Each structure stands twice: as structure tokens, then as C-alpha cells.
């Protein structure tokens, strides 16, 4: 399957052509190049997926296929970085997700970004992102993954900071990059630890569940945990940074400063699930050798899901709501992985997590694109500027509703199936976990419909509110152009049907196909909870009324804390600005200037002082010279005579 190399090479080529060749193309040409290439690789990856799932099944198990391998950098005889393409069920699945969503976003952006300065740059970055993300999921070894991991980080940085003249965008980009890079530091250390003990980077060896490979790593302990646990925990921190797990989630809401299609692609569907993918990729190691870390992942995931779901309930910026909902949903995926066992029915958590990743990518990008469409129409991110838009934008309304139903977990939309599996896996892990996750599912339904009603229902849209209409025309919101709405419709269609895919036939923890059975108790409970959430939201927000404000008043402290995202950002700001910048960097700079340099200058000035002092001897007074000369002569003579 050598041709899969093209899937990687084409976006890179597109990036090189659009970004590095110093030519100014018309926006249309640039957009067409980018979109066409994405279209081509989408088709290629569908073809590759079809080929893989039909031809590479040996004895009922999907094989790992190395389609391409190239030794890029050799460290020593054992450790070397290869660049290659690894095809296995999850990478193929990710490939489909990435190319599809990317293609949709490219298509959508043709309309959304129309007239923006730097259209060509935008498409170049999108191509770069597609390249790096595909490289990440197809990595044959953990170091290749790290390489592309960094590359997606930088693409994300560039795309968040796309409106580079806007300080908020620059700050958000910077924050995103630094936070994820901070997490990547742990990832790197984890890789170093893991590779030191296992003498390999290769996923093929690492995920073979061969105990010999990890013999040394498991036998050595540090502070009560085996080295392998440390390594895997550190690697997870890397993943948590990318996937915005608490407490490294702070960059994601700010990242919404980027263009909305970018948020859809990177910060909802693909890049943020890289952490989930990482855990899934190393799942055999986690589940067999370090189950305690895996349980930790489950708890982190659950807490994050709950935490961000609560915050999402009170945010007023529609993209922020979606951002927190993304964090929450990734928490779900992490829980899915964390509660999973290995193989067969035990491994249903793994399967469901991947399934949720798959469905979430579509419905969340649909939500974002829908939100983008709304923002495009009203030129504002704030809920207070919206309301009653269903009349003006029917396509957006319907697709948004579909996506909301999907995320809320209402059958037969895709979200129901995947979420339900996660819930049942959680129940089998522990009832408490299942209960919490079900509660969060209800919360999800509530805040999604709060969002939905606030945008499309509620108070009637008043064009006067949007005074800062920077196009200066078109006061009435209108349906988006064809390129945008076609993407919405396509994704809406996928959202409707994706749940019906027999996912277990393709992706399971051990590669052996497995039939999904819907646990009726769990399913009915979750549907009921979701409906309750929706009903409450309908009651509160469908029509403009006083109840939400009263509620906010009643829970004043909690409401405030939640809308300030529980002051996590402030804590970070404090620790970076106050502690690191003021109490480390500033003293170091001072220390360097005054103590170290002062010492050096002190040496210099003391030399000068001595020089000034002994300059007196060079008085030009001949008699003084003669005197010293005489004394010296006498002294030398005395020494010669009396001592020798």
C-alpha cells in the first residue's frame, strides 16, 4: 500500500506550493488548490480504508501494515527515528476522520474566509495541519509521533494566530503553544524513559504486549511506582496537554480566537483528540503493564468531563460553550479508554472510546461549522446578539439541531451509540463512575440545548444590536453560501448515519471484530437523562424569560465561579506572571546583570583601582625613581651577598 505515502506527501506539497513559493495567487486559485488536494487525499484514504479492512484481515485479526519506512535519524545502534506509515484499524479510522473533516473545512472555508487577507496563507496552514495530523496518526514509532505532535502544535499556533494583528489572537496562540509544549516536555521525558528501558521507539514492539520488552522497566521502581508507570504517566501528560485535560485545558477555550473553521478542524475534531489517540495507540502497554495509570486516566477524564460540562452551562460565547463541550467529550473518550480492559467484551471501553472519537469528530465539527455560519451571519460570538435565527438560516438550524441531538445522545443519531457504549463500559468499571458519566451526559444535553435555543429560538433577532457590523451592509442575517451549507449538510448526513456503522467489526482493542450489544438498561437511563436535560433547557430558554437570571442569582457564587471557569486561568496567570516571570526570570536577569556581571566588572574595576594606585609610582619625579632604584639595587645586592 505504498500509495498511502501520497496521503502524506500531497498536503505537504500543497503547503510548500501555497506557503513557501513566493507568489501571490488569487484567493480562488489558492483555495481551489488546497481543497482539491484535500479532496484527492480524502478519496485516497477512503480507498486505502476499504482496501485495508477488506484485505488485511488474517485469521480474523486486523494486521498492522507498515506501508512505508525510512530511517530518518540514527541515535545509536538501538535507537533510531524512522519515518513511516503504519496502517492499523485506528490509524485508518483517524485517517478517514481527518481527511473528511479537513476536506469539509477546506470546502467550508472557501465561503467563510472569503475576502480575508491572507487567504493563501490560511490554506497553506490548513495543508500543513493536514500533513502533520496524518503523519501523527500514521506514525510507526513514538518519536515520529512526537515529531508530528510538535508539528500539529505549531500548525495550531499558526492558525489560532491567523488574525495576527489582533492581540487576543496572538496571546491565545502563544498560550496554546506554550501550554501544549509544557505538556510535551513530559511527553518527551516519558519517551526518553520508555525508550531507555525498552531500547526501542517502535510501536510494533511496544504494543506487542511482550513482557520481555518491559522487563527492565517494570522491575525498576522510583518512589513506589515502576519506571514504566512513570513513563506511561508522563506520556499521558503529553496527551492530556494536547487533549486539554484538566488542569492543562486552559488553552482550548482561548484557542477559539482562531477562525471558526479552524476551531472545527483542529480544536474539535482532530488535534485535540490526539491525546486520546496516543493513549489508544499505547493501549496494550497501559492495560497490561500499568493499569493503575489507566485508572488515573479514567479519573482525570471523568473529572475533566464534569468540570467542563459545568462551565459550559454558563458560558455566553457560543464558541466557548462548544470548546468546553469538546473538553467534556474528550473527557468521555478518556474515560472510555480508562475503564476499558483488553480484548473482547472487556475491551468495549476502548472500542467505544474510538467510536465516540469518530462520531464526535463529525458532530462537533458540524456544530462548529454551524456556529461559524451563525457568526458569519451576525458577526458576533455572543449569545446576547443572537436569537430567533431559525427563520433566517434554515439549513444551519436543522443541521445544528441534528448535531445537538447527536451530542445529547438521542437515538438514532450517532452520538447515542458511542456514548452509550462508554456509559455501559463505565458501569461495568464501577457504578459510581457510570452514574457520574450519565449525569454528565444529561448536563451535556442541557447546555447544548441551552446553546441551541439561545441561538435559534429565544428572543427575536434584532438587527440593531449588531452595531459593529464591519462589512457595513446586510443587516438581516442570511443563509450561508453554497460551499458552506453543503459542508454542513454533508456532515449532518454523516452524523445521522455514522452511529449505524458496526464499529466493533473494525476497531477493537485486540483487532478481533466484536459485535456491539446495546445494554438496554443503560441506554434507556441515558436517554431519559438526556431528555430531562433537554426539557429543562427548553423550559428555561425556548422563550425569553426571567428564570435563568433568577437561577443565576440564586446560585450567585457558584455561577460566577463557573463563568470565570473556576479561576483556573487566574491561577495560571498568577503562577506564570507572578511566580515565573517576576520571581524567577526577573531575579535571574538581575542576578546576571548585577552579581555575575558585577563580579566581572568588579574584577575589572579593581584592576583599574590598583592601576590608579600604582600609577603614583610613575610620577615622573626623577628623584623618586632614583630613590626606588637605589633601594632596589641595595636590596638586590644585599640579597646576593647575604643569602648566596
Amino acid at each position, binding site marked *: 500500500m505504498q500509495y498511502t505515502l501520497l496521503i502524506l506527501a500531497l498536503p505537504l506539497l500543497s503547503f510548500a506550493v501555497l506557503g513557501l513559493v513566493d507568489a501571490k495567487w488569487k484567493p480562488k486559485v489558492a483555495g481551489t488548490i488546497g481543497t482539491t488536494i484535500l479532496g484527492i487525499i480524502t478519496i485516497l484514504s477512503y480507498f486505502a480504508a476499504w482496501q485495508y479492512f477488506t484485505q488485511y484481515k488474517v485469521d480474523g485479526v486486523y494486521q498492522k501494515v507498515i506501508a512505508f519506512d525510512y530511517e*530518518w535519524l540514527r541515535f545509536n545502534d538501538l535507537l533510531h527515528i524512522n519515518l513511516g506509515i503504519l496502517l492499523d484499524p485506528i490509524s485508518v479510522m483517524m485517517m478517514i476522520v481527518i481527511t473528511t473533516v479537513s476536506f469539509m473545512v477546506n470546502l467550508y472555508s472557501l465561503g467563510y474566509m472569503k475576502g480575508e487577507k491572507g487567504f493563501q496563507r490560511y490554506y497553506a496552514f490548513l495543508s500543513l495541519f493536514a500533513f502533520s495530523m496524518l503523519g501523527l496518526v500514521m506514525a510507526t514509532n513514538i518519536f515520529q509521533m512526537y515529531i*508530528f505532535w510538535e508539528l500539529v502544535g505549531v500548525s495550531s499556533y499558526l492558525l489560532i494566530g491567523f488574525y495576527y494583528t489582533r492581540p487576543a489572537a496572538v496571546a491565545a496562540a502563544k498560550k496554546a503553544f506554550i501550554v501544549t509544549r509544557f505538556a510535551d516536555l513530559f511527553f518527551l521525558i516519558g519517551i526518553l524513559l520508555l525508550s531507555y528501558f525498552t531500547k526501542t521507539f517502535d510501536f510494533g514492539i511496544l504494543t506487542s504486549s511482550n513482557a520481555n520488552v518491559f522487563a527492565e522497566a517494570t522491575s525498576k521502581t522510583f518512589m513506589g511506582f515502576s519506571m514504566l508507570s512513570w513513563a506511561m504517566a508522563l506520556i499521558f501528560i503529553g496527551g492530556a496537554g494536547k487533549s486539554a485535560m484538566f488542569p492543562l485545558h486552559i488553552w482550548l477555550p482561548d484557542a477559539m480566537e482562531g477562525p471558526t473553521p479552524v476551531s472545527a478542524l483542529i480544536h474539535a475534531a482532530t488535534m485535540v483528540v490526539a491525546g486520546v489517540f496516543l493513549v489508544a495507540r499505547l493501549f496494550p502497554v497501559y492495560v497490561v503493564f500499568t493499569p493503575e495509570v489507566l485508572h488515573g486516566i479514567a479519573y482525570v477524564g471523568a473529572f475533566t468531563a464534569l468540570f467542563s460540562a459545568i462551565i459550559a452551562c454558563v458560558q455566553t460565547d457560543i464558541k466557548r460553550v462548544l470548546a468546553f463541550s469538546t473538553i467534556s467529550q474528550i473527557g468521555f473518550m478518556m474515560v472510555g479508554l480508562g475503564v476499558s480492559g483488553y480484548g473482547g467484551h472487556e475491551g468495549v471501553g476502548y472500542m467505544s472510546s474510538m467510536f465516540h472519537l469518530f462520531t464526535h469528530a463529525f458532530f462537533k465539527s458540524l456544530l462548529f461549522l454551524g456556529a461559524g455560519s451563525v457568526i458569519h451571519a451576525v458577526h458576533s460570538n455572543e449569545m446576547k446578539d443572537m436569537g430567533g435565527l431559525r427563520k433566517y438560516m434554515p439549513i444551519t438550524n436543522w443541521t445544528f439541531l441534528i448535531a445537538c441531538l447527536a451530542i445529547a445522545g438521542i437515538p438514532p443519531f450517532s452520538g447515542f451509540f458511542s456514548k452509550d457504549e462508554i456509559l455501559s463500559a463505565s458501569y461495568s468499571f464501577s457504578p459510581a463512575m457510570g452514574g457520574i458519566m450519565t449525569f454528565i451526559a444529561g448536563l451535556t444535553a442541557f447546555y447544548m440545548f441551552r446553546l441551541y435555543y439561545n441561538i435559534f429560538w429565544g428572543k427575536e433577532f434584532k438587527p440593531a444590536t449588531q452595531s459593529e457590523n464591519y462589512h457595513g451592509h446586510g443587516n438581516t442575517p442570511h443563509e450561508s453560501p453554497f460551499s458552506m451549507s453543503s459542508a454542513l449538510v454533508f456532515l449532518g448526513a454523516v452524523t445521522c448515519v455514522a452511529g449505524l456503522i458496526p464499529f466493533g467489526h473494525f476497531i477493537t482493542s485486540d483487532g478481533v471484530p466484536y459485535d456491539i450489544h446495546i445494554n438496554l438498561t443503560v441506554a434507556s437511563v441515558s436517554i431519559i437523562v438526556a431528555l430531562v436535560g433537554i426539557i429543562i433547557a427548553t423550559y428555561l430558554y425556548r422563550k425569553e424569560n426571567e428564570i435563568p437570571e433568577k437561577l443565576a442569582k440564586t446560585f450567585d457564587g457558584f455561577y460566577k465561579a463557573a463563568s470565570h471557569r473556576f479561576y483556573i486561568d487566574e491561577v495560571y496567570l498568577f503562577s506564570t506572571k507572578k511566580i515565573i516571570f517576576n520571581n524567577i526570570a526577573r531575579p535571574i536577569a538581575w542576578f546576571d546583570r548585577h552579581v555575575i556581571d558585577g563580579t566581572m566588572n568588579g574584577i575589572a574595576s579593581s584592576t583599574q583601582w590598583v592601576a590608579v594606585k600604582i600609577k603614583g609610582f610613575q610620577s615622573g619625579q626623577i628623584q623618586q625613581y632614583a630613590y626606588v632604584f637605589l633601594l632596589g639595587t641595595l636590596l638586590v645586592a644585599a640579597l646576593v651577598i647575604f643569602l648566596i
Partner: protein
Amino acid sequence: MNFLSLYILILVLMMMGLFLSKSRKQIQIIMITGASFLLLLSGALTYLYLTERAAGNTAEMLFRADSVWYTPFNIHYSVGVDGISVAMLMLSSIIVFTGVLVSWKIDPMPKEFFLWFCLLAIGVFGFFISIDLFTMFMYYEVALIPMYLLIGVWGTGKKEYSAMKLTLMLMGGSALLLVGILGIYFTTGGSTMNILELSKLKVPLEMQRYFFPLTFMGFGVLGALFPFHTWSPDGHSSAPTAVSMLHAGVLMKLGGYGCFRVAMFLMPEAAHEMAWIFLILTGISVVYGAFGAIHQTDLKYINAYSSVSHCGLVLFALLMMNQTATTGAILQMVSHGLITALFFALIGMIYGRTHTRDIRLMGGLMKVIPFLGVSYVIAGMASLGLPGLSGFVAEMTVFVGSFQYADTFHRILTIGACASIVITTVYILRVVGKVIFGPMQDKHHETLTDAVMYERIPVIVLTAAIFGIGMFPGWISSMIGDSVLPLISQFIR
């Protein structure tokens, strides 16, 4: 006379040509021709070296030549290269070439400037080709002296102070070094100054304990070893662009190269014994330099502190004393040389336009000077270790190599060094966010013009080299790694 001496010869010819030249045009022609020849020569050398190695020549040094220079002290003019020197020569010629273009319009006294510049280059090239201790030391001194004038005359800011400080500190270092070198010479019986032969003789351990720290610190001063790094921020910020480039890009590498080639190679036992002291110092350099950079407001200061951090990483990796780490150190030298040269070139160009280097007074330059802006972002990304650019390759090799030590002491230091990449990210993004992105700070900046041809070439050359190493690190890494092996076996035995 073998062809390595051409490096010196071409530069001497350039200097002669400069003496005779009359107009700026002639000077430019002479300089660019000579620099191109140097670049070609380095290319040819790399090619010849690789073919020779591929043909199975396993001598430690290739292209040897030797002639007696001063018999009483057995001083020879002997030259030879291995993979490390080839890499360094390549780096030097790229930077000399770009340095010439960057100072294309240097004012005043272009002739004198380039004369000193050539002399500096002679020192640099001579240092890398010679394998005789004394010749090496002589070239080292030759490289230091022009620095004083170049900074003192053509610099900016408090240039006299900086020039004096830099020269005095480096001279102080070279005084230590001289003692070390003479120590090595006499304790081995005073029979040879040739490094290869010296390595076969043994400096008594007792003596190594004295001379290793002297030699290491002597070179370490140039390699910005904490706490002898303070010349670097002042020196770099005052120096004219091309000199900053050459200094940070190449001259600081002399330090690392010397530490490895002379101090550690000739006195391995003491190196083993004392590595921990210097590891702590370099570890401090790495983190401390990065933190120091966070707080600065002058672009050149930021870069100078970042150089302290990155050059600290070079020495740090060398002291880890295994093949991977050492290869990483050499790669880091090359990579940092290119990146920092690019940085200084860009800062020089930006300064030439905005007449300020204070990041608080600039902003949104991407809009008016997109070429420089994009290049600055690329340089920043390379510096913070983005994959696909040279910094990543070098740093990862260093970290993987350093991590091969299993004890807690080395682990902690390595993790500390790894942490520096996050701090690097912080200060790089701070600058990029402030200067290149963001809203315009100064109305006057709206009329700035983007880079012209002679400014674009060096930027493109450097960027291409950074990308080249970053994308295809295999050959250079294996070239260096193979050459490191015989040297490193000295420690392992």
C-alpha cells in the same frame, strides 16, 4: 601544501585584494567572490570527505599535511579534518558567506571592516583545520583580536565597554588555555604538539587534574560557560550584525570544539572525574540562560541569552561522554550556529529599518515586512526545536544521548535541560508575538520596506541550511557520529 590550506590562502588573497581595492563596488566583488569560493571549497571538502570515507578510508583525520614550523618546541603546521571539522568548516563558510552579504552596505570604512572580518575568518578556519595544539591556539588568538576592533569601531551602543569586556574575558580565558596547553605539552614529555600523537601519550592523572579544568575553562569562556558568559550579552548586542553572526555562530563553537578536541580528548580521565562539576555549571547555563532571556527587552540581548542557553547545551552534551550525546553536541553547534546567525541577521535588518531593538517599541512588523517576519518566525521555530528544522534534530540527539546515563544525578540534569525547551518557547513566542505579530506600535513603521535582494540571499541560504539539516539529518548525523566514535573511545576505554 594540501588543499585545506586553501581556506587560509583564499582569505589572505582576499585581504590583499582589499588592500588594493579602491571603491565599495570592488570591495563587494572581492568579498563575495572570496566567500563564494570558501563556500564552494567547503562543499567540495564535504563531498571529498564523504567519498573518501565511503571508499573505506578509516584514518582518524583525512587530508593530512604537516610541515615543521618551529623545531625547538616541536611546533608543526599540521592540518587535517574529520567529520566534526568538516561540519564546522561547512558552518563557518556558510556564515562567512552570509555575513559578507549582511554587511553589504557597512558604513563607515568598508575596507577596514572587511579586512578585520577576513582576519577573523582566518582565525576561525585555521582553528578548525589545524591539529597541532600550538597552531590551533595561535589561530584562536587570531580570531579573538579582530573582535575588539570590529565591535569597538563598527558597533552600536556602549561598544567600547562591550569590546573591552569581551576581549579581556576571552583573553583571560586564553591565558588559562595557554597554561593548559603548555601543561599538556610538557607533561607528555615535550615531544610533540600534534593532537593525534598527544592522545596516544598519556598525561599523568595527577597533572590532568590541574590542566583539565584550566583547558576546559579556557575554552569554556568562549563557549559561554556559566559564570563566564557575561561577555556574551554585551558583546553581541554591541557588535555589528555580521560580527554578531560570526561570533555567535562560529566563534562560540570554537569553545565547544576546543573543549572536546583538546580538553576532553587529551585528558579523558580527569574529564571523567570532573565532569560532574562542569555538568552542573553547564546545566545551570542551559536553564539560567533561558530564564535570563525571558526578562530581556532588547532583541539582541534575548538572542544572546538564548545563545548562552544553547551553547550550554553543547558543553552539557559533550560532558555526557557518549556517542549519541556528543554527536548531538556537534549537531547542536552546527544547528545553533545557523539559527543564531539567522537571528542576528534578521535582527540587524529589522534594526536597520526601525532603528530600535526594544521589543516594547515594535509590533505588527509582519504586515509591513512579511519576508523578514516570516523568516523571524522560522528562526524562532527552529530555535525552540520544531521538527523539520535543525534545532529539533540536535536537541533530540542531545537529550536521547544524555538520557543514556542511568543515575539520578544525570537524569535530573537532563530533565532540567529538557525543561529549557519550554522556557525557550516562552521567550521566543513572547518576541514573535510582540514584534512580528500584534498591532502596529509605531506609526513610522508603516512605511518600512521589505528585504531587498542582497538581504534576502543570506536569509534564504541560512533558512535552507536549517531546513536541510532538519529534514534530512541522516547524513550529517552519521558523518559526525562516525568521527566522534574514535574520539569517544578515548573516554570509554
